[in-house]
């Protein structure tokens, strides 16, 4: 009832302001009339009666204002008036408004963009129920880093650990789809039947895997992603129950995952099949390689620490039932990582650095706007003083100024959203291929709220200082010439410029260090000649080549066909390609050091190659000889090792003739391999990687023939142009072989540094924006100061100061601030760049070249910003200035 009345009366007052006012006036007049009348009745003369009534009632206007300010509608009315007035003021001063809005849009927009990208990766919980209980388990390497676990470890933990509601294992799987349309290599995972249940999701059509599906002898079944069903099967969910042909085997489709499902361990996965691995097996097969992922859902009552403790105890206490091979003996324990952190993984340092950078930029934008507002407050002093004199309360004035600032900030916020819209799209386009959860990046609700809160907060923040400053001591404002107040204000503005320069310096130094790192990185020799190299993965999926001999024959014939393509000067196959995402290492044992067991000495990268590989890649020979075609059959098997492997294992001794055994053969009684040559180190994981222990054996000498190999082709012309001809050559041998990842080596190198480049591009653009903002800030302060000192400058030049000396005077004033900012900024940069270390390469955080360069750049740009106001000051005509007084 009363709420209703509040609403309706309030609305009526709002919509019928004049009528309400008239009624109020009438009521008050009536009151007055009656008061006068009552005094007259008591015998006072009319004039005296009126005076008495006046005395009794007080000021009618005050009374009316008192009544008028009652009610909620009144607050709205004031707000509307304030906003309208603020808009008018902003329109009247377009220069200030445009610079202010653009600055804020830039700062808040950049922050919103980064927030959009970072939120799903670092902060938003993963799209699974109780995702905080999901962890991944890995072998802990001797240096504490995570090493992909083996299937044996999964089997043991499954049986022994009591910490998990559910455990699951997964392995990469890239089956070739044939039979419907063109052959395609799909991305998927082979998973234990518990995998989806562990994540807490289920197919929305058909059924999930059961334990029976996971038996080694059970029929082959798959579950598809909604995306794949749409793409390849016309979105028909009736596909469930039908069969598809994968790697030349029939698989029954038993389910389709929901459209919004993402498998964060394999974001590109479209197809899942059971592992069907035997829970008991010897150590010498694929199941014992370090290539699995283990996913666990912790029991709700357990904390991460308790789980870690249990696993630590398990790892330290092997039992006979689960014997462990030397390379997976869990000697260093089991690494438990929250799934969320694991997913953010490598991107984390870059993203944190970017967050830092965007906060700096936002800070600079705020400082700049504060500066603008301060400058404007100085210009508006007279206006404000006049309003105080006319009776405006201090609170009312502050409120008005804050409204103005907030309006500015909200306009900036709107601009920021537009900016972020474009920014997010650009970032997704720029993002490195491995950026996790890229599919979840959008401008959504939380981001919008963030932009709004950020703009309001910035508005209040930058509004408070100038508003308080303006309201203080306005009493004397009308008397003009309050020199002291002007003094403190310009000191505040000077301090802001110093802060701005310091912040910009931190950003510029960060960008500089990253830029130098990238430059250094690309200067690193990869260990081979990357120019004019074309690479592609050739996959042999089919049953037709199931036997190792047949598979080998296919690769050899395909190589022969590729070599005959005109423009090809050399070609070879390798099991793993440098600077791609291939990574494949094996333990080994050396005959001359029998005490060191296989795998105890770490692993070496395995390259199974066709003999022409070294010449095709131009990997220099250091000692002995290269692999030759005759090595493919000869015994003992010949091995070529890398320089760093030779140095590490044999020191200064000549390794040629030493006997070694690798991988599954290590520790067995198979015949020893013979080292015949030493070649230069090659960068495998990235140009920054430091591990280059590697061995090369001829195709046919490994325990199996890999069914995914990379063809490297050296060309005499543009390598990319040759791709179609080479693909045709491979297909001339067998048209059913999928070919993928067709890239030039130069392209691969660029890609391998894409994460650094991503961080660099972002921080670079922020640094540039910061530089511009700082320049605008310096310019604003100096030109404000020149305006204020017009008279002083006039007097100086009247007294004989030359233009040159006045120019120097102003420029010196600006440069003093800049230099102070640089000094403070260097201190900040020394600390802040700590966050960048993981992104840096071969450059010291204290790199003098970067600091000197950035300092020079800042001074140069500042000089430009100082020049204009200084030039204006130098042209001051003393006669005009002094006459104006």
């Amino acid at each position, binding site marked *: 009832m*009363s709420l209703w009345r509040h609403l309706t*009366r309030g609305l009526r007052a709002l919509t019928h302001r004049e009528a309400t006012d008239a009624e109020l006036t009438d*009521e008050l007049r009536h*009151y007055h009339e*009656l008061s006068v009348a009552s005094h007259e009745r008591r015998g006072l003369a009319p004039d005296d009666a009126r005076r008495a009534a006046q005395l009794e009632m*007080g000021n009618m206007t005050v009374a009316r204002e008192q009544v008028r300010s*009652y009610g909620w509608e009144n607050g709205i009315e004031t707000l509307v008036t304030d906003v309208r007035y603020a808009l008018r003021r902003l329109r009247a001063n377009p220069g200030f408004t445009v610079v202010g809005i653009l600055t804020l849009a830039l700062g808040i927009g950049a922050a919103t963009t980064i927030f959009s990208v970072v939120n799903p990766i670092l902060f938003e919980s993963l799209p699974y129920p109780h995702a905080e209980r999901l962890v991944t388990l890995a072998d802990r390497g001797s240096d504490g880093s995570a090493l992909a676990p083996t299937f044996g470890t999964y089997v043991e933990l499954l049986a022994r650990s009591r910490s998990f509601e559910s455990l699951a294992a997964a392995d990469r799987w890239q089956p070739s789809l044939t039979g419907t349309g063109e052959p395609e290599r799909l991305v998927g995972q082979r998973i234990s039947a518990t995998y989806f249940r562990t994540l807490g999701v289920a197919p929305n059509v058909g059924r999930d895997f059961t334990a029976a599906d996971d038996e080694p002898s059970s029929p082959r079944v798959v579950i598809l992603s909604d995306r794949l069903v749409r793409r390849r099967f016309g979105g028909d969910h009736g596909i469930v129950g039908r069969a598809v042909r994968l790697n030349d085997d029939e698989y029954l489709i038993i389910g389709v995952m929901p459209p919004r499902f993402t498998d964060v361990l394999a974001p590109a996965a479209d197809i899942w099949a059971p592992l069907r691995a035997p829970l008991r097996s010897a150590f010498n097969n694929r199941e014992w390689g370090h290539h699995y992922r283990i996913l666990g859902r912790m029991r709700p009552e357990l904390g991460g620490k308790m789980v870690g403790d249990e696993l630590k105890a398990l790892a330290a206490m092997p039992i006979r039932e689960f014997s462990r091979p030397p390379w997976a003996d869990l000697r260093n324990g089991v690494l438990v990582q929250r799934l969320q952190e694991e997913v953010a993984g490598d991107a984390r340092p870059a993203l944190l650095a970017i967050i830092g950078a965007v906060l700096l930029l936002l800070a600079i934008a705020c400082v700049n706007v504060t500066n603008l507002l301060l400058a404007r407050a100085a210009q508006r002093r007279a206006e404000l003083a006049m309003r105080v004199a006319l009776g405006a309360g201090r609170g009312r004035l502050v409120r008005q100024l804050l409204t103005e600032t907030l309006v500015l900030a909200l306009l900036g916020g709107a601009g920021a959203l537009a900016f972020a819209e474009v920014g997010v799209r650009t970032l997704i386009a720029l993002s490195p291929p491995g950026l996790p959860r890229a599919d979840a990046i959008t401008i959504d609700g939380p981001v919008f709220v963030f932009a709004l809160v950020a703009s309001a907060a910035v508005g209040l923040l930058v509004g408070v200082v100038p508003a308080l400053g303006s309201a203080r001591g306005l009493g004397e404002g009308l008397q003009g010439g309050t020199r002291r107040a002007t003094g403190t204000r310009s000191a505040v503005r000077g301090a802001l410029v110093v802060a701005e320069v310091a912040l910009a310096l931190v950003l510029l130094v960060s960008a500089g260090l990253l830029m130098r790192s990238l430059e250094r990185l690309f200067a690193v020799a990869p260990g081979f000649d990357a120019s004019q190299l074309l690479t592609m993965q050739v996959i042999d999926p089919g049953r037709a080549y199931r036997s190792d001999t047949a598979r080998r024959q296919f690769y050899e014939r395909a190589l022969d066909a590729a070599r005959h393509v005109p423009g090809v000067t050399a070609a070879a196959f390798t099991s793993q390609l440098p600077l791609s995402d291939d990574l494949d290492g094996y333990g080994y044992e050396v005959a001359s050091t029998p005490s060191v067991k296989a795998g105890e000495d770490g692993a070496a990268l395995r390259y199974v190659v066709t003999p022409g590989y070294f010449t095709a890649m131009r990997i220099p020979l250091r000692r002995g000889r290269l692999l030759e075609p005759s090595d493919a059959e000869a015994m003992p098997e010949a091995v070529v090792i890398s320089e760093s492997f030779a140095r590490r294992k044999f020191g200064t001794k000549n390794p040629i003739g030493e006997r070694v055994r690798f991988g599954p053969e290590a520790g067995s009684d198979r015949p020893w391999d013979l080292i015949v040559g030493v070649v230069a180190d090659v960068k495998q994981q990235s140009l920054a990687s430091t591990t280059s222990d590697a061995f090369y054996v001829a195709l046919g000498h490994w325990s199996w023939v890999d069914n995914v190999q990379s063809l490297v082709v050296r060309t005499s012309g543009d390598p990319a142009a040759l791709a179609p001809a080479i693909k045709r050559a491979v297909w001339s041998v067998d048209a059913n072989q999928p070919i993928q990842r067709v890239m030039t080596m130069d392209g691969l190198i660029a890609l391998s540094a894409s994460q650094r480049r991503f961080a660099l591009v972002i921080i670079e653009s922020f640094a540039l924006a910061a530089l511009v903002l700082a320049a605008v800030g310096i310019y604003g302060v100096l030109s404000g100061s020149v305006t204020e000192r017009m008279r002083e400058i006039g007097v100086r030049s009247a007294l004989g100061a030359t233009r040159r000396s006045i120019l120097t005077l102003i420029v010196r004033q600006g440069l003093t601030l800049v230099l102070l900012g640089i000094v403070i900024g260097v201190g900040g940069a020394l600390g802040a760049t700590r966050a960048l270390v993981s992104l840096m390469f071969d450059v010291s955080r204290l790199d003098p070249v970067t600091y000197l360069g950035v300092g020079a750049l800042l001074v140069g740009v500042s000089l430009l910003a100082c020049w204009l106001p200084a030039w204006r000051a130098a042209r001051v005509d003393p006669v005009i200035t002094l006459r104006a007084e």
Partner: protein
Amino acid sequence: MSEQNTDVIQGTMDMLILKTLSLQPMHGFGIARRVEQISRGVFKVNPGSLLVALQRLERAGWLDSEWRQTENARRAKFYRLTRAGKKQLEIETADWTRRAAAIARLLEAEA
């Protein structure tokens, strides 16, 4: 000579207005004059505060108002107690009596 305090005791303005209007509908000046008369000049009512209080009470649903003719043919705004207002007056009166008695007891105990 010290000036006597004629401010209405804080928080009691509403009760005084409701009480006054419980006798008959009245306009603003009438209410003010009645309060002053009955309190024998102890309370003086300022029109600004009175009209604000009237608005508040009206919005709370305790008063209704209407414009009508006075005896000397002038339009004036008259306030009238609603049923909810009557109930409110009872509550406030009871409350006030209870407190006043308590204060009185305290003061006597001191003496």
